[in-house]
């Protein structure tokens, strides 16, 4: 029965792009810096190209993209942009070296040639936008193709933070978005979909329009929402909370039943570095005979076996197209059933953006095919969260229940025996910064010290460290970063309070490496942290804002 496009049911795809802030100019090459570079080659640049193609085709498809402030900061960082070109050089040199010196079968040679073309394409795309990925997304957002959302300034897991920290994290994240993209975002992504009552209240007070919660956050809401997760709820008149649809999400997320586990897809865990002679590794070799992952993979998943066969890009492309058709069919049938029960159903499908391309190499292909297929069938529309609310503003009142999309659905991933030591230390560090900000008669240098302390505190609060400590992947790096930032908070605060003499150029060193927040954002962070008792100098703040627009 659907006729006009307004009456079509909605599929709202939400891609959440986030990486912790990592920059190590002091190291010749850093394993962790490569997280960004791998994501750029495999995910961010293909997604940008896909969206640009949608715009060129005048497609009606729209989706929501969350760019975390730490990721935006890294994307705009000239130093990291330079290092990305070095990374591409190293990879291309490695491929050429292997082609020249390793004995390979013709199919292996063809696969390496395919990787080389992929790397060249990434370089061309990156150069075409002058390295400014954030600017490119901003232009696409202005064209209405994509809705940009932000999140907490360093992606802190909010339900475990004190109210003042939640306010500081969210307010600073939104301010950073405003400085970079020109306007405050209507929606805010809650890190790890983590919410509880005080997070809801703070979102409302900050004037946030909408956010996304895990499905049981809505289903256990009080009072019970009659539309399940297929319509947002409104805990307050101005704030809408969307719920994730578990069935559609599982189709992509699940490693066993989901699409990414198909045997034709590229095997993520078989790196080229493990298949070639050690003397060919060059800069990818590590002391002790170990190696860094190269991101070049030649094998396909094949099945539950250690004997992995060679990857076949064309077959993988066909499988991805088949999966896209299945996905669109599933959504169409589900939405058709929902439309017989509700006039305005919406399926919200949030995913980590890095899934599409990094963890699941064929993800961007799948997305593009799904967009084209969905548009062609015309049974539903791909829309943004803001677009849906624009068409359907009123919704049932309900207060979501505390929840997250982590293991078990609550806070266990970020608070368990592996990482619980973190919580008291983070609260102590926040208290320390609050005390330092309360020192009377602060002069300019003390303000600079405080801003840097705010950066260090925010970085320590990132949810990524607790996640890594829990999963034991990169746990040593997480521990080292935490100790580093917490020590810096102590030293900087002691200098503010005049209890430690100025030693060397600690402030300049830390600011050069970790001073990712512009002065205006750091001031706002401090104000919210101290419940508005800290007052930045208005003149200094304005100047800093202007300076940030030019060169954050």
């Amino acid at each position: 029965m659907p006729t006009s496009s307004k009456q079509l049911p909605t599929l709202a795809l939400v891609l959440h792009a986030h990486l912790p802030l990592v920059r190590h100019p002091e190291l010749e090459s850093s394993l962790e810096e490569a997280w960004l570079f791998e994501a750029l080659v495999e995910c961010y640049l293909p997604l940008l190209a896909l969206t640009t193609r949608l715009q060129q085709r005048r497609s009606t498809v729209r989706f929501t993209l969350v760019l975390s402030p730490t990721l935006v900061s890294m994307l705009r960082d000239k130093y990291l942009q330079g290092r990305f070109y070095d990374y591409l050089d190293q990879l291309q040199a490695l491929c050429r070296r292997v082609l020249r010196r390793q004995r390979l079968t013709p199919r292996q040679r063809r696969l390496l040639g395919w990787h080389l073309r992929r790397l060249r394409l990434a370089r061309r795309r990156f150069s075409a936008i002058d390295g400014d990925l954030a600017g490119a997304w901003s232009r696409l957002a202005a064209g209405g193709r994509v809705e940009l959302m932000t999140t907490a300034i360093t992606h802190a897991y909010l339900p475990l933070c004190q109210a003042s920290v939640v306010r500081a994290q969210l307010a600073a994240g939104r301010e950073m978005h405003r400085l970079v993209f020109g306007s405050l975002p209507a929606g805010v992504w809650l890190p790890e979909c983590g919410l509880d009552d005080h997070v809801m209240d703070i979102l409302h007070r900050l004037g946030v329009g909408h956010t996304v919660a895990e499905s049981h956050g809505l289903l256990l809401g009080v009072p019970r929402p009659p539309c399940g997760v297929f319509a947002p709820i409104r805990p307050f008149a101005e704030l809408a909370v969307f719920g994730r649809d578990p069935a559609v999400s599982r189709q992509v997320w699940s490693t066993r039943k989901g699409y990414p586990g198909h045997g034709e897809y590229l095997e993520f865990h078989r790196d080229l570095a493990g298949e070639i002679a050690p003397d060919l590794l060059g800069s990818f070799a590590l002391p002790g005979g170990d190696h860094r992952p190269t991101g070049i993979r030649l094998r396909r998943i094949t099945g539950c076996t250690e004997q992995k066969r060679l990857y076949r890009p064309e077959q993988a492309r066909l499988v991805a197209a088949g999966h896209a058709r299945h996905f669109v069919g599933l959504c169409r049938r589900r939405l058709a059933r929902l439309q017989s029960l509700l006039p305005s159903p919406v399926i919200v499908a949030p995913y980590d953006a890095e899934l599409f391309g990094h963890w699941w190499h064929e993800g961007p292909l799948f997305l593009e095919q799904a967009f084209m297929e969905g548009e062609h069938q015309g049974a539903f529309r791909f829309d943004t969260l803001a677009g849906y609310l624009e068409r359907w503003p009123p919704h049932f009142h309900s207060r979501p229940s505390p929840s997250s999309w982590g293991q078990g659905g609550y806070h266990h991933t970020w608070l368990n025996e592996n990482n619980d030591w973190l919580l008291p230390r983070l609260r102590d560090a926040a208290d320390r910064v609050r005390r330092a900000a309360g020192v009377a008669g602060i002069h300019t240098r003390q303000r600079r010290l405080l801003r840097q302390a705010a950066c260090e505190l925010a970085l320590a609060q990132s949810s990524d460290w607790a996640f890594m400590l829990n999963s034991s992947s990169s746990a040593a790096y997480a521990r080292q970063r935490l100790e580093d930032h917490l020590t810096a908070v102590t030293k900087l605060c002691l200098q503010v309070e005049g209890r430690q003499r100025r030693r060397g150029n600690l402030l300049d060193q830390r600011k050069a490496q970790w001073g990712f927040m512009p002065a205006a954002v750091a001031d706002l962070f401090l104000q919210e942290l101290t419940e508005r008792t800290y007052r930045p100098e208005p003149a200094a703040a304005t100047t800093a804002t202007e300076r940030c627009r030019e060169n954050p």
Partner: protein
Amino acid sequence: MKKKITMNDLLQLGRAWGLQRVSRLRKSELGRELAKALRSRTVKELTELARRLGLGGLSKARKDELVATLARSLRALAGPVTSRASKLQRAVVKKADKLRRQVTARPKPRRGRTPGKTRRKRRGTTEEIPAVTAGELEVVPREPLWLYCWWELHPAAAAKLAKPGAVPLLRVVRLEEGQAGGHTVAQVELPLHARSWHLRVDQAGARYQALLGSKDSRGRFHALLKSVVVSTPAAVPSSATSNTVLAPSGQAGRQATTPGHPTPTDSEVLQQLSAPGLDETGTSLSLPTSRG
């Protein structure tokens, strides 16, 4: 003649007497802590201390005399409170005492009620109101049936927990609406070095409070610290269904685009579609095992 007692002497003594975190205390603070602990020492130990401090004429003194003289001597050693930390400590103690007075202040009797009744009611409460100066006890709900508690104890409070015969105890009580006190739902005997604990509770969607204290030889619990009250998330859907529709200001008039009220049957179907893990009784949600 009085001997000059060094920090090292005091540290040795503090450790020998089982005081907590002696190495973190200043000389003055350590002197005061030792003075407080005198009563629990034997006469032999006190006489030995008097000898080391160079206090003569106490070899045949009674314990009361020994304690009084040694306490004077140790407090004199501590000197007046002048350091920044001590000033801060004094300010904290003063503020905390004020707060405590406010908390424990007897409420003004309401008209028509005799003061005697108020007193009887106060006598009836079982939990001793802990001193707010003892430290901090924090608690966060981790899951519907799990709480995480951590605490920071001031040295004097830590010493109380470490007293011979005392058993450090962490207790969680569930608070019911309209009822004084609460039911103890979890209790754990703590090792002295413990600073945090994960505790399982008995009900989701309930209000809890944690208490940290010690159990004496008669099995009585003495609370030292009390947390704020926290609520754990519910594990079953609410019995009430929402029928209020909200819209942002300026768009409230767009009634043509309301989501519509699904019938109770339709609503049930929507709930089932939303949560495929909902069991037959509709009361238990199967939560995601992970996001990936």
